[in-house]
């Protein structure tokens, strides 16, 4: 199970990577993609919206199941990853093949970066999923 040490994690299996200042990328973990199986569609209908921590920002459709996506921290959804979007590359399997890289889901502008300290580090997340 791949759990990079430089990311923060939620109990709902999202990860956050802080890029610079208040900008961050959000995706789902290797564990999550493996549990979901073949991902066929990602619906993010909150681009441009300001959301609170734990709000639903989108939905992942796998063949067998549907899973909501939750904001790990409060912020504005700036964009959805074009490579996985229906209107862009339309290749949601990138989340299966590269969940922490090419398969990132949204870029956000954090409105309360202090919330990052509530999230799990790699060690704590590892303990959660093992």
């Amino acid at each position, binding site marked *: 199970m791949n759990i990079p040490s430089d990311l923060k994690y939620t109990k709902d299996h999202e990860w956050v990577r802080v890029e610079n200042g208040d900008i961050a990328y959000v995706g789902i973990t290797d564990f999550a993609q493996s549990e979901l*199986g*073949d991902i*066929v*569609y990602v*619906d993010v209908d909150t681009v441009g919206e300001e959301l609170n921590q734990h709000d639903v920002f989108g*939905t992942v*459709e*796998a*063949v*067998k*199941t*549907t899973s909501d996506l939750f904001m790990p921290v409060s912020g504005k959804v700036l964009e959805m990853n074009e490579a996985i979007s*229906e209107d862009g590359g339309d290749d949601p399997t990138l989340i299966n093949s590269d969940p922490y890289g090419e398969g990132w889901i949204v870029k956000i502008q954090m409105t309360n970066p202090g919330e990052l300290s509530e999230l799990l580090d790699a060690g704590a997340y590892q303990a959660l999923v093992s």
Partner: protein
Amino acid sequence: MKNTPLTEKHIALGAKMAEFAGYNMPISYTGIREEHQCVRTGVGVFDVSHMGEFIAKGKEALDLVQKVTSNDASRLNIGDAQYSCLPNHNGGIVDDLLVYRLPEDKCAEGEQAFMLVVNAANIEKDWNWINRENTFDARLTDISEETGLLAVQGPKATDALQSLTDLDLKNMKYYTFGKGTFAGAENVLISATGYTGSGGFEIYARNEDIVKIWDAIFEAGKDYGIQPIGLGARDTLRLEMGYALYGNDIDDTTSPLEAGLGWITKLKKGDFNSSDIFKKQKEEGLKRRLVGFFMDERRVPRHDYPILNESGESIGKVTSGTHAPSLDKPIGMGYVKTEFAKPGTKILIEFGRKQLPATVTKLPFYKPE
């Protein structure tokens, strides 16, 4: 949780396992889409040993089967199988099942024998039900615990299996079966049946022979790209064909006529459980129908999502939904009021706070070559 004779094999193969009907079963091995494609274009093997098998034997075994099932078992010759259902007394369905008319070599003079193959989740319920209904000269035996079942499905199934048996698989007609030696195991029943729409066979054998048979099938099928297939792909394959799944699309409250199973509800065969109710439904018309629909968008409908008409009024519920791997789009089935059941009708599916358009379509969703 119970194991099948193959549970350890599945775990060793790296399968994602989950509890299903009290058994520890493989959900997928390499991924549902890949396994689905393997069955549609090649050949795949499912361990479905969790399913239940009952034997009904006796001078009035046919009378019992005729009373408890909706299809006409009197049409079965020895070596024939039939899809059927067990109606309850209120016009609903206790279970759906396969009925096999068995050879009579172990029967006394004047006796007939049938094998009833039922869903794993319903074994106890069905057993109690059929016994309660058995007022005939018929003896029932539950052989579920000692019987294993493999489904070998796909267009290359015949080629992959023929070297393992003297039975002529190529000329075995759909919904017939033979008994013989298979991979060195004796008294194996092989039927040209399945739940995928891609052709193939189902192989019933004693538990102690199942591992040997599984290994022999993979050895013989090597050149045909044979793969193990989990319950995840079993669901996508059956749903593309519009086959009902008990507990989702049919249950104790749904009539076989509403479910599109009129073709296995033989009202002319004589009285059987709920036949009066079904006759009345047929005369008066059905209030709701099980239909298939394509989503006009990409979200995938799931069990219990509400179905609405174009004005947003509730007209039914989704019973099954998935992303269809062969079509690469979402499909679903559900009950709607009869006036919305015509192919081409526009409906809405409610996804939480969103209502997304869908179109009623004829079944099957997909026709394998």
